[in-house]
């Protein structure tokens, strides 16, 4: 009997989440995303669909680029996923600050990463500050920034 396949859309929590025992230098479990034209078209889409340079080749060409470019805000979502998976409810009281370095295109593979840089305990709360970034399949950083959250 062939093995049962795993639902690729099943939620996969991180094995290690934010806790008081997390040390500076801890690397979060990375999250890999395949950017596709379909996902770009679905992102915050309206119906009937409105053409723009994020979803339509002709409009992209008119704007001087070879193909539709992913929304920067959609790539930021990958960092939002990293934070909520790591901090859970502790994302509230936290922050995210990113700089956008490079464009992202259909079929790019984006890996989202984070590393703990600071740990401050104040009373019952511990705040962890992370360096976070997204890199493409050439290991080029496309978004970089810092994030923080609370461990209660």
């Amino acid at each position, binding site marked *: 009997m062939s093995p049962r396949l795993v639902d690729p859309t099943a*939620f996969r929590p991180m094995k290690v989440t934010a806790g008081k025992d997390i040390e500076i230098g801890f690397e979060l479990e990375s999250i890999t*995303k395949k950017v596709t034209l379909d996902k770009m078209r679905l992102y915050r889409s309206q119906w009937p669909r*409105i*053409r723009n340079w994020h979803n*339509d080749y002709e409009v992209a060409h008119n704007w001087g680029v070879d193909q539709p470019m992913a929304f920067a*805000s959609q790539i930021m*979502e990958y960092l939002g*996923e990293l934070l909520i998976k790591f901090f859970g*409810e502790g994302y509230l009281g936290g922050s995210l600050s*990113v700089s956008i370095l490079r464009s992202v295109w259909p079929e790019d593979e984006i890996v989202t990463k984070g590393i703990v840089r600071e740990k401050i305990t104040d009373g019952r709360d511990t705040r962890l500050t992370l360096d976070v970034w997204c890199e493409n399949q050439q290991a080029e950083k496309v978004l970089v920034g810092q994030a923080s959250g609370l461990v209660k």
Partner: protein
Amino acid sequence: MEEQRRQTGTHELLNAEIGHEIAPVEMVITAEMAERHAWANDDYNPWYLEDSPFGRRIVSPTFLSYDTDIMLWNHFVLPEGYGVWAKQEFQFIHPLRVGKKIRITGRLIDKVSKRGRDHLSFEFLVVDEDGLEIVRMKMGQAFPLVARSEKTSHEGVQDEPKAG
């Protein structure tokens, strides 16, 4: 299909004064938005699709950054030469709950000319129907898309002080 008109705004951006307020936006966060967003981002967190510890489904923390960009171009005319979205900041205060009506207000907070571009910063506050602050955001955009010669920075945008 119609091409999206991002230039529906009528206010001049590069001549706007610091403090210029952007027309506010109100919207209801729907279950359909949460689900479509989950599928678009391959992020099937049950907090978005089923229930959350906050009493009902929520949407992702960074959900509204898209809306602030659209809000900008429904208020300002997109400058000639277009621009680039350079920076974004979030302070997460309360969860963004499905079913809640929210109001986004925003204003221009800084403008500086450097390296052949005009860099403009905006801040946004999102408050829900219960008066809870949900998220504070800052966004930095740079104009034009292709940097121009340093000597032709736009009138009305203060040159960044040079080191030394």
